[in-house]
Each structure stands twice: as structure tokens, then as C-alpha cells.
């Protein structure tokens, strides 16, 4: 029985050229992995590749034991969810409506929502502490509220793996700490795994189980935060 959610072997990724030398890693259930690295080192491209939005440049990438390209799109979306840093914020859309979009992979062709969908939406709204402003327009929220609303949207997808691109990009320190705490709780309670990119190494050290460190020259190192630090993998950040 294959217990890994994601299994990459000799994976190289990139659009027209590979951004990295091949590397392998496994993601078990209930782990928080932070992806760190300088700008332009391919962190977002890596997440998009994991999500199946870009085909791997070479190597193999298994999602729940099956090659990512072979999943039907809808089935894939039930297992892996991605939230981009540069998310368009549509006007006139309430938080509830946005969160409800997370149920799209489960909807029929008329995009209707069942009682079960409503229950899940309400659950994730409570979980992320967004229920009180569920009726407000998402464009009118503060950055902290909006990041939680988009997290709720991802959670509503009921995926086993959630990829977050710079979830703390617009947040101040208390909001960042709260967000990471919330993620940690979800990891422990629901056995969901998060892979998130961040420039906040302090948070990565404090909360992540392992760090994927991109060195900016195509090298990728994976390990427990302190191990990586001892190996000098964070030299680009002068740590």
C-alpha cells in the first residue's frame, strides 16, 4: 500500500527549460513543508507542477500513487488544491460564494451545491474564523481576512494536499503567526499536508516539519530545518 500523497522521482520542472537538477522527495499525510528560496528560483513553478497545471519537465511525479497526468482533472482537483499569491479578487463576490467555489470538483454539470457541500462550507468557515464575515464582499476584506478566506476556499476542496503560494505575503507579524498556527492545527487534526512557499524563514523554522530549500542555482535540498541550517543550505539568505 502506497502511503505517500506525493512521490517525485528525479523530478525536473520548468516551462521551456528545467529550472532545477533532478530531485526526489516524498510527502506523507499530515506534514507541513515550507519551500524557501530566492526570488526566481522556481518556487511557484514547482507548486504549479505539483498541482498538475504544468507538466513535469522530466522525471516522474505521482499523486496518491498515480502519475499526475493520468488523473482526470476533476479527480485530481479532489486530491490536490492550490492557492496562488497573485489571486484576482473579483468584485461583487461574497466570501461565502468564493469558498463555495472550492466545491466545484464535486458539483454536477449545473454546478449545484448539496446539503453536504453546505455543511463542509460552514465547517471550513468556522475553522478559519471567517464565518462572521461570510456575507461580505471579498474585495472589501483586509489582507488578513482575505488570506483566511482563500484558505477556507482551499479547505472546502477537501483535498489531501494543499499548496499555498506565499500565504503570508501581505500579512503583518501577528497575522502571519496566527496563520501558521492555524495551518499547524489543521495538519494535526485533519492529516492534511501543506506545501507552502514563503520568504519568512523564521516561520518556516518554527512551524514546518521539513523545508525544501531552493538555492537559486537549480539545487534543491530537503530536510529538517536545523539539519539544513547546519549543512549551510541557507547561505543565500546569509543564515
Amino acid at each position, binding site marked *: 500500500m502506497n502511503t505517500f500523497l506525493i512521490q517525485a522521482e528525479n523530478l525536473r520542472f520548468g516551462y521551456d527549460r528545467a529550472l532545477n537538477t533532478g530531485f526526489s522527495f516524498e510527502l506523507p499525510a499530515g506534514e507541513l513543508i515550507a519551500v524557501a528560496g530566492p526570488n526566481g528560483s522556481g518556487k511557484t513553478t514547482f507548486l*504549479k507542477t505539483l*498541482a498538475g*497545471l504544468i507538466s513535469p519537465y522530466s522525471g516522474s511525479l505521482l499523486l496518491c500513487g498515480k502519475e499526475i497526468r493520468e488523473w*482526470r*482533472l*476533476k*479527480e*485530481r*482537483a*479532489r486530491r490536490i*488544491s*492550490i492557492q*496562488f499569491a497573485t*489571486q*484576482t479578487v*473579483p468584485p*461583487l*463576490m461574497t466570501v461565502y*460564494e*468564493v469558498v463555495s*467555489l*472550492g466545491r*466545484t*470538483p464535486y*458539483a454536477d*454539470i*449545473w*454546478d*449545484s451545491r448539496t446539503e453536504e457541500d453546505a455543511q463542509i462550507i460552514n465547517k471550513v468557515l468556522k475553522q478559519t474564523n471567517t464565518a462572521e464575515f461570510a456575507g461580505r464582499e471579498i474585495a472589501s476584506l483586509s489582507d488578513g481576512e482575505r488570506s483566511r478566506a482563500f484558505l477556507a476556499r482551499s479547505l472546502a*476542496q477537501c483535498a489531501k494536499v494543499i499548496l499555498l503560494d506565499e500565504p503570508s505575503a501581505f500579512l503583518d507579524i501577528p497575522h502571519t503567526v496566527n496563520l501558521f498556527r492555524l495551518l499547524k492545527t489543521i495538519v494535526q487534526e485533519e492529516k492534511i499536508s501543506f506545501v507552502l512557499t514563503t520568504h519568512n524563514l523564521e516561520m518556516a523554522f518554527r512551524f514546518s516539519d521539513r523545508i525544501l530549500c531552493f538555492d537559486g542555482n537549480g539545487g534543491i535540498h530537503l530536510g529538517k530545518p536545523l539539519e539544513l541550517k547546519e549543512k549551510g543550505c541557507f547561505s543565500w539568505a546569509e543564515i
Partner: protein
Amino acid sequence: MLTALFAFLTLALGAVEFSFWDLFYTLLNPGVKSPEALILWEFRFPRVIAAILAGASLSVSGLVLQTVFNNPLASPFLLGVNSGAGLGIALVCFLGGVFASFGIIPAATLGAFAVVSLILICSRYFENSLSLLILGLMIGYFIDSFVSLLIYFGDAESLRGYISWGFGSFSRLTLSEIPLFAGFVILGMLPVLFSIRYLNTARLGDSFAESLGIDLKKSRFAVLLGASILAAVTTVYCGPVSFIGVAVPHLTYGIFKSSNHRVLIPGCILCGALIALAAGLVPGIPLHAVTSLIGVPVVLWVLLRPQMKRWRKR
């Protein structure tokens, strides 16, 4: 939400009442072959149907294009439909010869669908919706300039024929053409209705939709196909009625306060049919002018009302 929908349904039927039911009741009692019956069935009835079909299809077409292109100013004519139909008609009017034997409606149909298919084929190769938008506009301009040339070299009599098509009218439809028109409208609605999931997610961006398990290229093609059929068939039968496709979606957002296409599509059908009926009440005047004359105040009222409330509070 449902009540709003039903309230609106009655409203939409109410608009028919003024022109239709009065006559209808007088007609039920006497013999069917009276002159009124003739007027009713031969002229009035097709006009009502034309208005409903045209209003509904232009609105839905405009709505989904605004969603796909993520641009509140997108209209059905972005797909080059009116340019194509215009070109077909201009060829018939001005060149004569082989083209003249075609007749207006087949020529417009051919022109509209030729241009639309060109843009649809291109759409398969464009990742980015914005470049597709620009492509549509450019092809439209390109063809319009052709038409201008034809007009410049044409004679006055042909010009009149061309311009009267350009005014737009619901009166051109005859009873026998209704099934064909309606058939095309249904054909155009189907791919749109089957893509509601895509439409609802597309407003948050293409990659967002894709990450939720939507087959982006397929869905976008289906929606564009549906929108072009709707716009093309309406333009062919009723002329270029520009206003409805841009305005009614905004009217619908304002009234239904939703961004869900499960609500917006029926809403657009109702609002579009209503506006088109209201505009079509005045026969003889160019539709192009009437739709905007009636529509602009209505849309402005709906759009500005929430802001007015805010101003009053200050």
C-alpha cells in the same frame, strides 16, 4: 432569490401583455380569419418572439463573454459577428452579380459564421484571454474597413438597403422563420449551460479554474461557440443590436446581487427579453436607437442606486 426570479418572470410576461393580450382576448371569440388575427399572427406574434429570443440570446452571450474575458465591457460583437454579417450583407447589396442571388439572410449568416469560426479557431491557440480579445477587435476593424470600402464605391440605392439592416428591427422575422431562429438559440444556449462550472470559477482567473478541475481549453471553446451562435443568429435576423449585450448583464448583476451563473443566466434571459420587448413596443423606429434610449436610463438607475444611497448617508 427564487422569489426575485419569479417576480421578474411575471414582469417579463407583463410586458407582452400590453401589446398582445388585449388583442388576443378580442380574437378568441369571433372567427379566426379576421384582419386582426392576420395582423396578430403574421406581424405581432413573430415580433414578440423575435424580441424575446434576441433579447435573451444577446444578453446571455454578453454575460458569458464578460466572464470569459474578465472584462465588464465585453460584448457579443467582440467576436466579429456584426462585422461578418455586415460584410455578407454589404457584398449582396453592393456587388450584386453572383452575390445578389444569395439573399440577405443567408449572406449575413455565412458572413457571421465565417468570421466567428476564424476567431474560434484562433482561440484554440491562445493561452491568454486578453490577446484573444484584442484579436477579436482587430479582425472586426479589419472587416469593417472592407465594408467601408464597399460602401464608398456602392450606389445610393444599395446603401439604403445596407443601412436599414444596420438600424436593426424585430419586424423582419416571419412566422415560418421562427422555428429556425429558436432552434439556433437553443443550440447556442446548450454549450453555455453545460459550462456553468467553468463560468463560475473563471472570474477568479484561468489558473484558478484549472486548479479546480476544469478543462480550460474545452470549456472556453464551448462557451465561445455558444456565445457566437447566439450573437450571430440574432444579428442575422434582427440586425446589429449593440446595446443589450453589454448592458443587460450589468442590469442582472444589479438586480440579482449574485455572481453565480446558475442565477445570472436565467436572470439575463428574463431581463434581456424584457428590455428587448420594451424596446420593440415602438414599431418603425430603428431598434438600435430605441434599445439605447430606453436601456441607458434603466441601467444607470440600477447601477447608481446603491451609490446614491451611500451619498445620502454622508
